[in-house]
């Protein structure tokens, strides 16, 4: 059996201990890891060879927003490359900026290593799925919504809705059982993430906004106050 070539993951993180920990954990999952402490070194390497996935911290050494710049540059080099922001900064603004720059996911450092590995795996799975022909079996349809679980793609009335990985998993969890209330814990579990209530709230808000950009009348995600959210058709 031919050993498939190891997927290469670039970690750009200025905190050495964290960098090593992430690298060790992901290496254990069979990835080849390149770790960089700042944007300059990372960019040099990327210009030579693009990794298969990049995990980027926002503040890099003396550059408070170095991660954003790096993300922009990477996107310029490749439109498909999965990019994950992994940062101690948890403000709404940072999340919005990061995702707008084309990152696939925005994680705070609260995320556990297994969760991180799960996301990395999911993103690679999506890359693979995108390269394969369509597999209709994986597609969930709920009225105007259609979710491709493999490719992690969402459409509303046929129009694509670009969601981050976390957002996608939240929508997926809600839409799988319409009418069922999913509390925050369930949504976090589904999204492989540990978040506080406010962050879930802002994720939901962001998801609604993204659907509303496609259909202003979108009202399928309902808040059940004090309990959670449910998908209504």
């Amino acid at each position, binding site marked *: 059996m031919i050993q498939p070539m190891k997927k290469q993951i670039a970690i750009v993180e200025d905190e050495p201990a964290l960098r090593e*920990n992430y690298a*060790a*954990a992901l290496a254990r999952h069979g990835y080849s890891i390149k770790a960089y402490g700042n944007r300059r070194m990372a960019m040099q390497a990327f210009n030579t060879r693009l990794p298969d996935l990049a995990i980027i911290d926002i503040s890099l050494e003396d550059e408070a927003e170095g991660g954003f710049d790096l993300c922009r540059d990477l996107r310029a080099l490749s439109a498909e490359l999965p990019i994950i922001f992994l940062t101690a900064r948890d403000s709404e603004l940072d999340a919005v900026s990061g995702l707008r720059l084309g990152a696939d996911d925005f994680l*705070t450092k609260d995320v*556990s290593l297994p969760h991180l590995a799960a996301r990395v795996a999911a993103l690679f799975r999506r890359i693979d799925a995108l390269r394969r022909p369509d597999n209709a079996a994986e597609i969930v349809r709920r009225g105007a919504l259609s979710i491709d679980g493999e490719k992690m793609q969402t459409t509303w009335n046929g129009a694509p809705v670009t969601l981050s990985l976390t957002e996608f998993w939240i929508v997926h969890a809600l839409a799988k059982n319409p009418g069922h209330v999913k509390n925050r814990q369930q949504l976090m579990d589904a999204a492989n993430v540990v978040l506080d209530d406010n962050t879930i709230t802002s994720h939901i808000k962001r998801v609604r906004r993204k659907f509303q950009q496609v259909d202003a009348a979108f009202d399928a995600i309902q808040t059940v106050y004090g309990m959670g959210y449910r998908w209504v058709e």
Partner: protein
Amino acid sequence: VSIRLQLLIVALTTLVLPWAGCQYAKELETALRSSQEQSLLANAATIANALSAQPQRVFHDADDTQAFSASAGDLYVYPLVTQPLLDGYRQDWDVPAEPTPLPTTTGYRARLQAGSTEGFLYLFIEVADSHFDAEPNNVQPDTDRFDRVNLALDGPNGREAYFFGTDAPGLIAAQSVVKGEDGVDRAVAEPRIQAFWLQTAAGYHLEARIPLSFVGRHLWVEALDGRGKGKAGFAADSAAGGRLFFATAGLDSLLETFIGDGTRATVIDANALKLGTAGTVVSKKRGETEESEPIWYRYFLGVDTTDMPMLSMAPDHLSGESVSSALNGHPHAQWVLRGSHRDLLLTAAAPIVIDGQLHGAVVLQQAADQLLALRDRALSRLFNLTLIATAAAVIIMFAFATWLSLRIGRLRDAADSAVGSDGRIQLTMPESASADEIGALSRGFERLLARLNEHAQYLRTLGGKLSHELRTPLTIVRSSLDNLESEGLRDDQRRYITRAREGTQRLQSILSALGAAARVEESIKQSDRVNFDLRELLISALAAYRDGFPGTHFVLHTPEDPCFARGAPDLMVQLLDKLIENAVDFCPPDGTVTVRLERVQANYCLQIANDGPLIAEALMGRLFESLFEQRQGDDDKPHFGLGLYIVRLIAEFHGGTAVASNRDDGSGVVFTILLPLI
């Protein structure tokens, strides 16, 4: 004691000024008086000396030093100013003294007074006689009985006797008894001695005029009743007495030459009888201004006059300490009071000594010096001015003190309210622009408040900063644990990993709680306002709380219809979360948490009430402050005093307010959120 009162008391010390003025005035007055005494005494001594050099112009009989004795018939002859009309009345004599009673042994009462002017001696005799007995015609003076007045004189030709009697009242002449050639005594009229006989209800008056040429040193008067034995007076053959004491003619004008304006000089003989007088006490110049002198200031300024004697006003003689001292040979000056105004009068007396023999005295009387009067006026004006100045100083001081205490009061009020009930710090103080100490104090306050504010700001952001800064090391710990766990550990090792992981989770929740307020503030900034049904929100949230807190009984009261409010429902749920958590924490087991929504006027009134311990009154206003925590935490949840602060933030975001209170019956506490209706 307020500053105002203190300054007022200090201001009152300016009253020392008028007081010192008074003291100075008194000393000045004493000095001026004493100098006036000295000068008047010197004057008196000078006049006395001058008079002693010419005794014949002063004394009627300079050799007669025998004492005056009214009981022996001695008679003082008042100097009359004008010639009286012979009419039987004494009023025009202008002598203030009453006539002297004549001695009697029979109860027959008669009184006598003598006066003199322009070469005549006047006698006035007043007799009480119930029945008029007329003098018969062709009187036999020695034998006939009628109402008569006998008069004996030491004339130039020896002693001569006359009598007055009449058949009808009116103008009469004196009669003398002349033995005729036939040896019979006859009454012969002496027309130069005239008299007026006036019959009155009580008797009769006899006013007689005798040329001084008839009059010598002695005179006797006797009144006899016509029908009885009644008689009074001195018979002509009395051996002693009957001396006449005249005021010395020409002495008045002599004295005029010695004295100046405002001084009265009186010369008395050794018996203190007036021999002559000149001048008036009240100067004409002074008289004009004296009326305007205020009397009251004497209470503050004047010397004590209560012990001073009143001036004796006897018309025929002088008395008093200075007079008796001078008649004992010692010059003496004394202040006396005169009249109802109690004007001050200086009396100075100096003895007149001739050849070592005391003959009389010169008495000078003078009103308080004009200098004194001037001093009085100046000082009373000074006194008035200092009083006004003091009053002004007191008023100004009072106003200043009021202003000062107002400013300080403003500063104090500002300092009291500098830290508001919401924990916000008012950074500007009143008066800080002033250049004085109060301004400096105010600026000191401002600096203090600025530092306090920095400190409070730092504390407020500390939670967020800490939770941010600690996140990376915490992540290192957790990711290391993750890595360690996947190394394939033994079960006993895994136990420690689990413990370490629990520890990091607790740390995580602490950091999360610390950063909660900062996150709420941020999400408030990014929240959109939508219309939502508060009632529906409460119903669904309460259902969740019933599941979440099975040990607590929840009761919900809402209106029947939807209650639309405008805001962020997610935040409103967070507000509810905090209040419900708080209520459940303090609610005893099996207690009840009551949630009530009502419309009150223009607001929704949302009340979350729980049974349980009350809130101390003093803490009531501070509960909603950031980082205010009074709870004695016995649970393992971290409390940073941010829960109710978040409640307030969210209530304010919705345009409402949050208030805590105790139930009236003391069974628990109520948190009330007022939100405006749409």
